Each structure stands twice: as C-alpha cells, then as structure tokens.
C-alpha cells in the first residue's frame, strides 16, 4: 500500500502532475507514515496544526479543514 502510494506519487511527478498533500486533522503533534512517504515529492504540504511543523518543515499551516 505504502509502496503503491509512493509509485503513484513519483509517476505523477514525472508527468508534471501537481500534488497537494493535506496532513490528517488527527495529527496534532505526531508524524504519519503516509506523509513521510510522499513528503519529498509533494508541491504543497498542508498542515492543520502548528505543532506538526516540527516534523514537516515545509508544512503550510492553514488551520483545521472542518
């Protein structure tokens, strides 16, 4: 599953597809495996809590999606 996700993200990248990743609202102060896998290739990495910026430096904090 994780491998497929990575392949999909990299393939998309090669084709010039933009990738926006939104980290789960449930991640308030912890890392997520899915996020770690796609982090290097995504164009925008959006975080919903300020604290996770520690783990994901390029995270764009926009507050909660709800």
């Amino acid at each position, binding site marked *: 599953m994780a491998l497929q996700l990575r392949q999909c993200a990299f393939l998309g990248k090669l084709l010039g597809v*933009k990738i926006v990743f939104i980290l789960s609202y*449930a*991640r*308030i102060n*912890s890392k997520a495996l899915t996020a770690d896998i796609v982090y290097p290739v995504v164009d925008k990495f959006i975080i919903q*809590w300020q604290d996770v910026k520690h783990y994901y430096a390029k995270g*764009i904090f*926009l507050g*909660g999606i*709800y």
Partner: protein
Amino acid sequence: MILVLLGTFVTPFERPLIEIEKLCEAGTIAEEVIVQSGHTIMTSQYMVMRPFIDPKELTELCREARIVISHAGAASLIGAIQLGKKVIAIARLSKYGEHVDDHQLEILEKFATLNYFLPWRENVALDSLLNEIDDFTPAAFVSNKPRIMNYLADYIDSL
C-alpha cells in the same frame, strides 16, 4: 437519551461500553442508551447496539441526545460539538489494541484545553463525569474551512 459513538475503525472498543453497562445495571444511568457500535460486538441488556447508522439519521440522533459519549475521533467529535452537545470523549488507545497508535490522545487533550468537551481519561469514573456535565457548557466550535478552501482554490487557479 445518551448517544454513544464508537466510530467505524476496524478494531473493537469495549472499555466505554463496559463502564456504561455497569452504570445502567446500578441504575445510575436510567435513560435510553443508543450505541453506534461499529466493529465492537457486545451484547447488552440495557444498550441498543447499532453498528452503523447513516449520517443523516446519526445527526438526528445526535440532535436528540442529552449527552454524547464519543471515541476521540475527529469527525464524530466535531459533528457533536457543532450541534452544541454536551460531549464526554474517550481516546482509543493502542495499548489495548483499540487503534494503531495514540493520535486520539492528542485530539482528546487538545480539544479538552479548548473546552469542547469533558475528557474521559483513564482511571476517571464515568459517574463523576456524568455529574460534572450537568454544569458544563461547551465552547462553540470554530470552523476554519473557508481558509483552507480558498487557499486550494487560489492554488488551482494559479496553475
């Protein structure tokens, strides 16, 4: 009526039900208890077990409920908080096999500080929370949806 939300995650979450059942048995809880039980299988003399409830009906039940007791899953919690309900929230914990990790603890503590609900932490008795909740007024949920939506719309337009 007390509505209990256990979510739809694939592992069982029995701890809250065991405590609620005890209080029903003791007569402390005398009102109807409806449980959205998901993948938790438990037979009860007192609680109505409904594994999955469609969203529309669930919202109605939530509206009718006097108290909502919920796992600390974001969607379940926010649904109830947005309706202004008095919520008692309990985290699914990985050490009991209730979830894959302890992210629900993060939500529990964050939302507790925002005064959205009463947290039901380990070694706290449910009956004391049920007493406390009568005088508890939850903070109104502040939605931030437009900000993130506008950002995405602007980004897409810029491509």
